[in-house]
């Protein structure tokens, strides 16, 4: 069966969607990703959808769901490289993906993830000092 590979880069997970998403593939990705996050204790997930040219409401919801699940597992999610047509479609479908960070390309997405994780570490150490 088709699977979307999940790569581990340090404390982040990298998912590159290079094929047309169909519903089963999306569900499998959800399972795999949550599994990997909890197994590796990843701090962030980067999903590259620059090759994704067609989305429907299901895929849109799946992206939002993955972000929500990752947050529960204490990992930040960044979606990068969304095509203009995809962005317009999602907005027209009423899926604005609240709570999902976005970036223009993988490089910036990585920067965003690092920043997000660092902020959290700083917050924790600030709290530690305050006590």
């Amino acid at each position: 069966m088709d699977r979307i590979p999940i790569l581990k880069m340090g404390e982040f997970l990298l998912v590159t969607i290079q094929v047309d998403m169909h519903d089963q593939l999306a569900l499998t990705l959800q399972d795999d990703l949550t599994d990997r996050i909890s197994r590796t204790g990843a701090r962030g997930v980067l999903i590259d959808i620059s090759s994704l040219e067609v989305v429907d409401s299901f895929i849109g919801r799946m992206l939002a769901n993955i972000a929500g699940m990752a947050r529960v597992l204490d990992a930040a999610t960044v979606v990068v490289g969304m095509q203009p047509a995809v962005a317009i479609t999602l907005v027209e479908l009423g899926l604005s993906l609240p709570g999902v960070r976005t970036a223009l390309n993988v490089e910036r997405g990585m920067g965003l993830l690092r920043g997000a994780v660092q902020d959290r570490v700083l917050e924790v150490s600030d709290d530690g000092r305050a006590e």
Partner: protein
Amino acid sequence: MTAERSTRIPEIVRKHEADILADWVLQQEESVSRRRDLISDQELQAQSREFLSLLQSAMQDGGFADVHRGAEWAAVRDMLGGISRTRGIQGFTPSETATFVLSLKPALFSRIRDELGKDAGALFEELRRADELLDRLGLYTTEVYQKNREQVILRQQQDMLELSTPVVKLWDGILALPMIGTLDSARTQVVMETLLQRIVETGAEVAILDITGVPTVDTLTAQHLIKTVTAARLMGAECIISGIRPQIAQTIVHLGVDLGDVITKATLADAFAAALQRRSMGVTRLAAPRA
């Protein structure tokens, strides 16, 4: 078809072509709607002569009924279309344009009367036919005139659509989109597409939507704006809305429009400053030059 064939109009026109032309041109020159400032006598004369000869050959070959479709009438239609177009551009009104054809009536009718004066039945029949024919041709000129106007309007609309949505690069990574005119669905779509495309091309991180030139903001306009902002955010660029006039700020609040967590600024300058700050840049004053 037999009725068509029995008409003597083509014959009469051929016989009296010169007289009809002279009368007709005179009629046009006298008519109130004649615009000496827009068209010269020579031009008018030439147009009239050409039309009359085309009309005559068309009448010879084709029936009077299929003016709008018949192949025999194609030359007449082309000529009338051309006149209608040029007169439209020269500034004639639709009725002045149609008068070109309609003013042929008196000249033609009096010739028909001269020829058929004795036979009241035939005279009436021929007059009716000629009248109908010229009316059709007159209507055709008006139709073409109208169509041309519509084309002009359509073209201007498209021009406006393209002209009114420029995406400007203000600084490295900062785009601005000064919006002018009413924001409707069609325009928002164009705005959104051009903006997102430019974000991809330039890799911009911040986009400023300036609505100084948008006369009114209602719930629908606000919705369009929010959509644009959300789409840009999905692509990883942040939007700042600027140029909100005091009245518009009041309207937005009165309407209960929730702009959510969209950053809004009063002027484009403020928005630019905010965008620079977001990119960790700033503007400083150079040391004052020595006097």
